[in-house]
Each structure stands twice: as structure tokens, then as C-alpha cells.
């Protein structure tokens, strides 16, 4: 395990976000310890994507604090936050469809020009996603949905992040592919990358996460051990369809 001097890799405190007059997050707080998989579950429109976008700097908060490795992220532009070791794999995967698979991966490691480092990162990505290796020269827009998710995750891993944030990796994928993707997420985590996982597929997310937070219209309404939340009657009825 990597030795770290801080308790929390990521700490979000009283975070509020507004889109104009709409309040998307009402002062949420949560944290993620080094090595953890933490999941943020909630229905459509709960504010999950907003949370990730605010951490990665795409959206500005109206109040509250975000600390990454004890550094305050407030006011740091998105492209610099990426360089601190946070990779955000956005909802809908967002491949650069006009670029090849190789180029997408290369841009994932935009902050480095070190050939050996890039090759090592790419080799590492191919271990998790061997299918990408066969498609390097192909335009990213021609990949299937599952392959695009793999590309988006691989692209995020190219920067060798300390924290990988995944926004609904299961969206639109068949159950078999979802299992495959979640197994890989677990494997990536076991190799030392902390993961903040946003999901509507609560069942899958709770099965691989250590801890979980339940988000409802911009507020955290429940939190705790993922296994325990899975047994919680409120979670069962609202999110697991039982």
C-alpha cells in the first residue's frame, strides 16, 4: 500500500453549486480515503455529474471546499486539476470521435512528453482493455458503446491518476458488459488507484464499493458502508427496485 501523509485523498465540505438560479447541490460533504472505491448513487438529476464536474473544475462552486491531497482546489482551472492526479471519465464517455483510438489515449497523457512513461501507461491500459490495442488506428467514433467506455476509461488511466472519477460507466451497456466493466474497475482499484464511482445502477456500484453516499436532489440523504446500505430498506425500495 502506498504510504500517504493525509487521511483523506479527497475531501468535499459543504459544497454548493448553482446553475444560474437552479441550485444543483445544497452543501454536500463526503470524503474518500486513499485506496478506496466510494460510490455516489442517486436518481437522474440528483446532482451526481455536477459533483464530479465541480471536483474536476468544469463547474464552479458557489460555496464550500474541495481538497485533494490536502490541497484546496478552489480557483484552479480544470486543465490544471487534471495534472494534479484526478482523471474524470465523463458521463456519456465523450470520446474524441474525430480522433483515432491511439490519439485519444495519447491525449489522456497530455501532460507528459516522456515516451517511456507514455508507453508504460499504454501497456498498462492494454492489460485492462486488450480490445483497444486491436483498434488503435480506428476512428474513436466507430467504436461500439462498450468499447467507447473502455476507451474513455483507458484514456483516463493514461495520466496514471491517483483518483479516477467514473460517471455512470454502466450507462447503456448490456448486463454482461456491465459486469465486465465493473470487474475491471475493481482490478484497477486493487492495483492502487482510488475510485469515485457515480452510478444510477446502485446494485452494481454497491457491490464493488467500500463506502457509499446516496444523493437526492442535491443533498446527501444516506451514507455508510456499501454492504450495509445494500441491506438498508430505504435503499432497497428506492434504488434497488426490491
Amino acid at each position, binding site marked *: 500500500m502506498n504510504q500517504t501523509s493525509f487521511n483523506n485523498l479527497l475531501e468535499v465540505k459543504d459544497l454548493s453549486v448553482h446553475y444560474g438560479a437552479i441550485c444543483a447541490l445544497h452543501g454536500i460533504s463526503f470524503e474518500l480515503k486513499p485506496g478506496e472505491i466510494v460510490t455516489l448513487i442517486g436518481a437522474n438529476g440528483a446532482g451526481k455529474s455536477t459533483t464530479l464536474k465541480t471536483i*474536476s*473544475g*468544469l463547474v464552479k462552486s458557489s460555496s464550500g471546499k474541495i481538497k485533494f491531497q490536502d490541497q484546496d482546489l478552489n480557483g484552479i*482551472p*480544470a*486543465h*490544471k486539476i*487534471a*495534472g494534479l492526479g484526478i*482523471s*474524470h471519465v*465523463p458521463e456519456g464517455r*465523450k470520446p*474524441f*470521435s*474525430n*480522433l483515432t483510438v491511439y*490519439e485519444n489515449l*495519447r*491525449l*489522456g497523457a*497530455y*501532460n507528459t*512528453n516522456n515516451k517511456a512513461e507514455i508507453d508504460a501507461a499504454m501497456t498498462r491500459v492494454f492489460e485492462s482493455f486488450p480490445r483497444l490495442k486491436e483498434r488503435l488506428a480506428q476512428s474513436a467514433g466507430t467504436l461500439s458503446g462498450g468499447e467507447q467506455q473502455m476507451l474513455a476509461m483507458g*484514456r483516463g488511466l493514461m*495520466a496514471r491518476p491517483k483518483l479516477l472519477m467514473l460517471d455512470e460507466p454502466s450507462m447503456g451497456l448490456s448486463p454482461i458488459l456491465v459486469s465486465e466493466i465493473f470487474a475491471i474497475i475493481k482490478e484497477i482499484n486493487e492495483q492502487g488507484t482510488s475510485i469515485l464511482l457515480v452510478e444510477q445502477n446502485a446494485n452494481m456500484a454497491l457491490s464493488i464499493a467500500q463506502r457509499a453516499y446516496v444523493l437526492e436532489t442535491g443533498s446527501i440523504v444516506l451514507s455508510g458502508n456499501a454492504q450495509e446500505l445494500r441491506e438498508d430498506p430505504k435503499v432497497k425500495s428506492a434504488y434497488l427496485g426490491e
Partner: protein
Amino acid sequence: MTYFLQQLINGLQLGFVYALIALGYTMVYGIVRLINFAHGDVFMIGAYFGFYLLGRFKLPFPLAMVGAMLGCAILGITIEKLAYKPLRNAPRIAALITAMGMSLFLEYFTSLKFVFGPNYLAYPRPFPIVNFNLGGVTLSNIQIIVFGVAIFLMVVLQIFVAKTKTGMAMRAVSFDKQTAQLMGIDISRIISITFGIGSGLAGAGGVLYGIAYPQINPFMGVMPGLKAFVAAVLGGIGIIPGAMLGAIIMGVVEVMTAAFVSSTLRDAVAFGILIIVLLIKPTGILGKPAAEKV
């Protein structure tokens, strides 16, 4: 037949100059979705930079060329930072009107006596003209230089955009700005680079125009700028090879119309072609059908 070939060469010469201007229109549009109406005036200022570097400072032609390109690159980057960047999140019409204002500013400011002055100036001749006779068709050393420089710059640009990391980043930014930032790409830097390259190419176009059509004045950028813009739309705005193709078509059609129909109709026919192409294929010759565009 030789007359036709001769006109084709003359048309290509004009087309290559248009291409150097059109590239800047299309690259800037690809990145920030802005029609930079001041671009034709950057071309004009490039011609003047060449004028002074060749005439006053007696620099050799290649150095004057590089100097004009650098000067225009800096000018383009400055215009973006001062005029367009503050409006990046404003409605697009605001930036468009600012671009028109910038264009007028550059034209009238440079017309002032203590800047370039309002008069036509004769362009310096950096070398004597030599004509080569190829079976009845004459090709001048100036034409060879126009073709050579333009093709060289376009090839370098293509390699840059296709092969370098910054080129990849430009394409990524043009496709999806938010996701590009998540890769660590500094959008402002990429926009600056794009304006710099586009303006530098226009500067090269200005110097080539100056030696090929040796009369310059502060409004000389208006028509070539408009034609290059039309060329960029014709080829498919935002698409680099489209701008080259559109510009060459525009140049050749313009010269052919003047030669075989009537000199007064040259502009009408050039713009008429635009209207016809856009009626048939609104996204331009190399553009994807609109429905596929993201």
C-alpha cells in the same frame, strides 16, 4: 489551349494566395466557431510588414517572409486576447460584431498618415522577374515562388495538425472543449496557437500577394478576405483540406471568368458558385451532411 493553360496557372496563383487566407478562417472557426472578419485585414498588414521588411530594411525575401509571418502571428494572438477572449461565453453574435468592428478598426487605423497611410504603394521587387516559356505557356519565377511557398506551408500545416500532440489537441478542442480540459489541455493556449498559425499563414499570403500583384493599400484585404471566407465555406468550414480546395476553385473560377467571359463578372460568378454549392450541399464540398455534425 495554351491560353487556357496560361489562365489556369494564373488562377492557381490567385487560388493559392486565397488558400493561405482561407486556412486561418477555417481553423479559427473550427476551434471557436467564430468568423473572424478581421482576418482579411491581418493579411493586409502582413503585406505591409513585407513591404517594410523588403523595402526599408532590405531584408532578403525569405527573412522578410518569416518576419511578416511572425508579426502577423503576434498580431492575431493579440487580437484574440484583447477582443474575442473576453466574449468567449457571450452570445456568438457579440463576437461576430466585434470581429467586424476589429476589421474596420484595422483598416482605418492603418490608413492614418502616421501608420501605413491611405495611398496605394508600389510593392518592392525583391528579385528580378524571370519568365520561363513552357511550350507557349509562361511561368514566372514569382508564380513558382507563390506555388512553392503556399504548398510548403500547407504541407507543414497538415503534418503539424495530423502528427503533433498540439495538433491532436487542436482537433480535440474543436470537437469537445469540456472533455479536452479533462485531459489537461489548456484551451486558451490552443486557441492562441490557432490564431497565431492562421494569422501567420495570412501574413505569408499578404507578402506573396504583394510580390504577385504589386500594389497595396489598407483596404486590399477586404475582397481577398471575403473570397477566402467564401472559399472556406465552399470547401466546408472548419475542414482544413476543404479550405485549400475551395480557395483553389475560387481562384481558378475567378481568373477563368475574367479571361473567357467578362472581367466585370468575375466576382459575381465566384459568389454565384458559392450559392449553387450551398444550395446543393449546405455543409460545403468536403463537409459532412448536417445531420451527422455534432
